């Protein structure tokens, strides 16, 4: 994407992490603003209108979750939260609070950059506005409700399609188990995780090159699933 450099607000109270991340993001062509507290983060978000926020959930003056909720009161800026090692509940809470994605600390810089790229690209196109979503030779046409693989039509049951379509509409984002179950089966099925396990195995069998090593229909342990486009 050309034009002026995109602005990233990084919220972390560790100066060394701020410095390291800023260096990496700068090198990748982003303009970085740092904030060390929840207060600073909210102020910086209002003043600098960043294109993406990287938000540590643990802040000295409050929870990053609250920052996320406060941001969502007035902006749709993509938010990537950084959560501690295996705090799945925190990740789910952050997604519920409006976060777009999360990374788990400690993370590789390359992984975070990929997430930043993904959410900024998505932000440029409103969710669901693209009629077609493509990955690994598969094309999901959300307008025609059809799926092809390498040009040939793929037969999906209505539920399989509903599940895939929900993931495709939010391609790149993690969708939690309850959200997927609601989308494909309706309200009241939010706890039937085994439906998802069975149906995702079938979708992988029909759409993945190697169902035992899925590249696109990715399990996010303890949280949900993500459709990975590239």
């Amino acid at each position, binding site marked *: 994407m050309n034009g002026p450099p995109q602005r990233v607000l990084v919220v972390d109270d560790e100066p060394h992490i701020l410095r390291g991340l800023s260096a990496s993001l700068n090198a990748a062509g982003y303009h970085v603003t740092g904030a060390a507290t929840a207060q600073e983060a909210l102020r910086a978000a209002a003043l600098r209108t960043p294109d993406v926020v990287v938000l540590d959930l643990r802040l000295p003056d409050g929870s990053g979750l609250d920052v996320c909720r406060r941001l969502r009161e007035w902006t749709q800026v993509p938010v990537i939260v950084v959560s501690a*090692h*295996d705090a*799945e509940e925190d990740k789910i809470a952050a997604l519920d609070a409006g976060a777009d994605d999360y990374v788990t600390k*400690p993370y*590789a810089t390359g992984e975070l950059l990929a997430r930043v790229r993904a959410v900024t690209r998505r932000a440029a196109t409103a969710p669901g506005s693209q009629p077609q979503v493509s990955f690994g030779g598969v094309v999901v046409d959300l307008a025609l409700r059809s799926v092809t693989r390498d040009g040939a039509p793929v037969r999906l*049951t209505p*539920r399989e399609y509903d599940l895939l379509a929900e993931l495709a509409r939010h391609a790149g984002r993690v969708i939690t*188990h309850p959200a997927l179950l609601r989308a494909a089966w309706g309200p009241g099925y939010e706890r*039937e*995780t*085994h*439906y998802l*396990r*069975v*149906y*995702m*195995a079938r979708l992988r069998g029909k759409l993945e090159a190697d169902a*035992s*090593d*899925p590249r696109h229909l990715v*399990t996010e*342990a*303890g949280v949900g699933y993500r459709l990975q486009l590239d």
Partner: protein
Amino acid sequence: MGLRIGMKRPVGDVTGTADPDAGSAGGDAVAAALWRDAPLGVLELDLHGRCRGVNPAWSGLTGMPADRCTGDGWMRCVHPDDRALARSAVAAAAGGGHAGPVPLRLVLRTGGTRWAELTARPAGDPPAAPAAVLAMLVDVTGRVRREAELAAIAEHSPDAVLRLDANRRIVFANAAQARLAGFPPSAHAGRTVWELGLPEDLVVVLDAALGRALRTGVGEDLEFPVPVGSDSRWLHARVVPEADGEGAVRHVLLVSRDVTERREAEDALRARDAMQSALVRGVSHEFRAPLAAISAAAGALERVPEAERRELLHAVTEETARLERLVANLLDLSRLEGGALVPRLDWCAVDDLVTGARRASGLAFGPGELVVALDAEHPLVQADQVLTERILSNLLRNAVIHGAPPVRVTSRAGDGVVELAVEDAGAGLPRELRSTAFAPFVQGEGRPGIGVGLALSRGLAEAQGGTLVATPNPGGGARFVLSLPLVPVPEVPE
């Protein structure tokens, strides 16, 4: 107090220790002096038990003047319940025998009660055909009261109390002692410690301590295990020499307390201390290697040519990842031990678990180096996905670091469990490590690795209601089996 017979002849035991030929005027004078001044109450009776006279000490002791004691009068100062005892003692002496000391109560004219010991002896020559009876009273009120107090205190003491006499025979046992020994206090009386059913080697030590206490007046503390039923309890015993009023040690107390719980707590604390210092040693050791590598690489970065920097940076990244895994494992271990790690059980696909574990392990397997063969009939298990991936990831890393490829991951259902096995084609787990491999920081000789991986993995398995064991591998390499409860999968509608 006119007493004749007693004065004219050597009087039984009262002067009996003197030379038998000393039945002289000198002997009479001594007997008279004793009659008048001894602190012993003396009563002279005829062979029918009628009083002929009492000495001043008797009147002093009972408060009854001599003239009121004559005939059966003296009996009035004996407690009604104890009169039969007194009579039979006197009768025994009248028959030529020795009676007493018999403990009995005296009723004072002032209304109180005192304890006395009555000893009755035949008087006159020959003793087998006595002419009279001498009854002697010693005031033992103080001693009896002390003993009663001691018994009352000891009876309700939570400690087991035994009181033994100078011959190391039991004269008192309290309720706690009875519970400990398994037979009633009364059954203790007269026994020695040899007759309490204790192990012989213990009794040798105990009896020696009792003997020393009686001999030297010095007590000691002992601690030993005793069999109680099918159980074994630890006792702490205090041997307490009991000095009487004159400072002589005629009794010894053996006070025992069950200290099993304290000892067990101490043992647990010691074991915990040992484990914690092993943990700290292990952790320090584990941290030192990657830190040294990072420090060396960082120090070299400024000095080496551009071309070599990439390799150094790679080392920094690798070693950092190693530190991160170590910290994550340690954090989980402490959360697990602190009960802060609560598994979130949900349906998981076994193939997802294996894929997730392989990715989390950070290992790159070449073609054919990882073989996954899963039971298609049982694709789902109830587990915490994140924790189970961590277990499998630890096992995969173990297989690669300590074993050799190919690494095989298989699943199998049966006997109420789903088993996930990770095995490698290396040399296998050394026999000496089979039982200790799951303790934190145990590693094979000269092997690298995360010293908490297996300990943590087993903890994570057990927290989810599963198990993790090392099993023999016919193929030769190490084989670890994670078993999770087999839960029937509810129907999934089309």
